[in-house]
């Protein structure tokens, strides 16, 4: 089959690989119809995530048709149309049973190395480095889906791929980012990053009853999406001081909760600030550029929540612990426990409360994946989200 593989920093290639087969009794094989490039795939593309190998198949947002199931999979049958959550979760460990699917205790066969870096191992993730399991990803014609009796959600025929594939990652991730803010009536929520996750976090904050939602980014076309599709107010950090503006907008209180939907490759309006962390990252004395996180902590109302759904991989410098501690802030974070959200969010889509596909800017065939990565990386052609069709 054809699959999009990581070939080194800034390099992906569609290559021929063997078709996947059932390896565990709870596996299913899915023939992929639509898959997406995620912002976190760019972290891999840029070489910021360790333990990648040449030839690793990328992709953790995908959906398609079940073509084969292992002997222990009784809830699915060939022909079912499913969307697959990006974290691989067994459903039977203590973490899964508490709904913490992205920290499944069994799904990372390479837990040993992950423990050395993170203390304990999180779940395995499709196509997301050997640190997180060494699983082949879904930017391919077929994928093997472990624990198919737990993860995949059957999608009704009247929900198009564009909407359903959002349930693999970005919509649940954005939703969880908003949910973690514990939004009360009258609250103001600020979101750093107007990529797919940030936009869907902003939309989810609206759904969950925020009084006002403020989105911060530097690309006018993305801020326009936030205004037009989410009804959010926006700040372009290249043209305004974010902390001053937020204080002004909230009459000095600061947002009640701040969502970091940027993660480890942030940018900063101040060239010197950016250069400092960029240089440390390039020399690997820091793995992240945590501008959004620092700013979110400083901006947040005392006693408020900082909700982190942007992806981080290693270590952060100049963490404003003084502000965080002295102002009674709360941080909530995590890779999304997608399995917990797929069904309720599908129902919101069915009820017409939201159409998450408003973020899609590009559709192209799988064979053009390298072009898709390039456009997304450079933010060319007003790129927000690239779907690959198979």
């Amino acid at each position, binding site marked *: 089959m054809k*699959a999009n*593989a990581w070939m080194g920093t800034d390099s992906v290639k569609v290559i021929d*690989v*063997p*078709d*996947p*087969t059932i*390896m*565990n*009794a*709870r596996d299913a094989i899915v023939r992929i119809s639509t898959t997406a490039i995620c912002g976190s795939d760019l972290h891999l593309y840029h070489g910021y995530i360790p*333990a990648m*190998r*040449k*030839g*690793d*198949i990328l992709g953790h947002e995908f959906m398609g048709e079940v073509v084969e199931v292992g002997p*222990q999979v009784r809830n699915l049958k060939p022909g079912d149309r499913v969307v697959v959550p990006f974290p691989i979760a*067994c459903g*039977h*460990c*203590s973490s899964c*049973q508490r709904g913490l699917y992205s920290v499944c*205790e*069994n*799904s990372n*066969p*390479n*837990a*040993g*190395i992950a423990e050395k870096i993170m203390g304990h191992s999180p779940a*395995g993730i499709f*196509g997301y480095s*050997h640190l997180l*399991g*060494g*699983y*082949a*990803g879904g930017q391919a014609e077929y994928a*093997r889906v*472990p*624990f198919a009796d737990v993860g995949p959600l059957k999608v009704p025929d009247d929900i198009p791929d564009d909407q359903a594939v959002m349930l693999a990652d970005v919509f649940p991730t954005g939703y969880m980012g908003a949910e973690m803010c514990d939004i009360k009536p009258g609250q103001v929520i600020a979101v750093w990053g107007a990529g797919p996750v940030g936009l869907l976090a902003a939309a989810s904050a609206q759904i969950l009853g925020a009084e006002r939602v403020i989105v911060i980014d530097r690309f006018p076309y993305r801020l326009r999406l936030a205004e037009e599709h989410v009804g959010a107010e926006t700040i372009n950090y290249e043209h305004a001081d974010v902390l001053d503006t937020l204080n002004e907008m909230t009459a000095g209180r600061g947002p009640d909760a701040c969502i970091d939907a940027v993660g480890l490759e942030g940018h900063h309006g101040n060239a010197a600030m950016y250069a400092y962390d960029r240089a440390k990252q390039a020399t690997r004395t820091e793995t992240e550029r945590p501008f959004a996180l620092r700013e979110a902590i400083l901006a947040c109302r005392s006693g408020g929540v900082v909700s982190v759904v942007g992806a981080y991989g290693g270590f952060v410098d100049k963490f404003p612990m003084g502000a965080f501690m002295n102002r009674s802030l709360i941080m909530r974070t995590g890779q999304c426990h997608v399995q917990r959200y797929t069904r309720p969010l599908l129902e919101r889509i069915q009820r017409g409360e939201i159409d998450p596909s408003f973020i899609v800017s590009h559709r192209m065939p799988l064979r053009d994946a390298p072009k898709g990565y390039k456009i997304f990386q450079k933010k060319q052609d007003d790129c927000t989200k690239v779907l690959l069709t198979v």
Partner: protein
Amino acid sequence: MDRVDNVLLPELDGPVPTALPRTLGLLSLALGVGALVAPGPLARLAGVDDSPAAGAAIPAVGARELVHAVGLLSGRRPAAWTWTMVAGDALDLTLLGRAMADRRGERRRRLTLATAAVAGIAALDVAAAIAVGRARRARARVIRMEIAVTVNRSPTEAYRFWRNMENLPRFMAHLESVHADDLRRSHWTARGPAGHRVEWDAEIIDDQPNKSITWRSLPGTRVPNAGRVAFVPAPGDRGTEVRVQLRYAPPAGALGRVVAKLFGEEPEQQVRDDLRRFKQVLETGEVVRSEGSPNGISVRQQAMQRPAQPLPASRR
């Protein structure tokens, strides 16, 4: 050496020669007392009763022997004490040699007999010192591990799975098979590098249903090993804390190197992986596999991951 080793690996008690050093200690005691109480008759017996120096030398030797006797009979640091004995023997033989140089006749005959007796004791002392040293090194090679994992299953379920020893190769990577001969005894086969196999018989020496199992290899095994697993309810209704203690004593030489490779450079990490697989098998039904790690968890394999893409037909 903690007490657990003595319970789990009685084989290691065997080579520690406590009997010989004790006997030598008693001999030293007799000699020392004799030399202090009756130096005159001892000097006549050795044929040095004509020497003015013997009157001082013999009680001194006796005092030294008493010190040796106390050391050896105390049972502490037998290796050091046996080698001290050997040094004392060398000194005695030197003195006897000197005495022999200027004596003739009956005295020379007695000196020869005394020298032969001391040489015999010296040989015993050397043998004891070597044996004690070897046993100490064997004990130093014993690898001990205590590793635990929390499994979201009841102690009963975890115990039952482990108690069927034939299940062990399902999560212990280095094992090829375990065949249960009966409820207590089993035959184990471990897979080594380059087709080497290590086999042994083991027996369950303590079985507390739903609580713990203790087993050890039978005496005579080339790689003495033993283990104990306890199943303790985890606090907060979170299943079972599975706590494993393992001991094995790799031999020196070629077999030792095979055993070392079997367990890799980080034996603890391997056992940790074994327990992770145990958890996977109990919680999910089998060992979890990915394209990069098609054989499941293995620290050794992590260094040589395949790319994360489906296996070619030849590797399925």
